[in-house]
């Protein structure tokens, strides 16, 4: 089963890279762009086929390694989910 994990900075955590991207977009003439935030996308392929077990395993992975929950949120998407 394939899964993707989105990792984003929590609200209120300064994101200097997002700020730089926002400024660059402005300089290119893209108006009305606000609050650009940069995050990470991680794709994994799991042997597990049970969605519940897969989600539990992915949550464990995020808490132990993939995200630093002091500053980051994570969202898990299993393949086939909307």
């Amino acid at each position, binding site marked *: 089963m394939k899964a993707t994990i989105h990792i984003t900075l929590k609200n209120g*955590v*300064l994101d*200097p890279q997002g700020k730089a991207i926002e400024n660059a977009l402005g300089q290119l003439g893209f108006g009305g762009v606000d609050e650009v935030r940069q995050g990470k996308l991680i794709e994994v392929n799991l042997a597990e086929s049970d969605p519940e077990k897969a989600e539990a395993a992915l949550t464990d992975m995020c808490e*132990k*390694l993939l995200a*630093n929950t*002091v*500053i980051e949120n994570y969202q898990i998407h299993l393949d086939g989910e909307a």
Partner: protein
Amino acid sequence: MQASVIVFPGSNCDRDVAVCIEAAMGKAPLMAWHGDSDLPKSDLIVLPGGFSYGDYLRCGSMAANSPIMREVVAQAEKGAAVLGICNGFQVLTECGLLPGVLMQNKGLNFVCRNTRLTVTNNKTAFTAQYEAGEEITVPVAHNEGNYFADDDTLKHLQDKDCIAFTYAEGDNPNGACLDIAGICDPSGRIVGMMPHPERRAEAALGGEDGKRMFSGIVEALP
């Protein structure tokens, strides 16, 4: 007294730190590789600066989960003194021995220069040879040194006297909360700092302000 320096793939300050420790205690430290799952009992463990595991995922995150770190955490919990410098500080926050996180510098640039530091807490295991409030000069060299923690954690650090070093007024190179350059645990035995005391530990390097970190810990340990 037994001292150990942990070497990760990508560490690059391990030998500099070893020279400082040997100068202070008259005996070379053990160099322990990241993949080892045994670490001889150590009174002092140093996590050196560098780019462990290429800074992949987040600085220090892979190193924090390496086999040797389980031993480091276990020995720290039993009373070993631990010093994390730069990347070593990032590893200490990632493995949970110290709170908070080191984020990318506010200015988005790698900063490599001398900084003026204030010794905020001279009661840690490493800072007893400094005066409280003493200003010293120690270089930084990092891209992710912007110390961040939530307000409750910052208040806890202040209340428990866990801020070991701050950047002197006007000399914060990275945007760190409360100008924090280094913190300790409440016991003062575990210290993490972004500046590199080993890079200013003899006159030939431009100054000796960092030397007392190493002589201080040797004096403090049995």
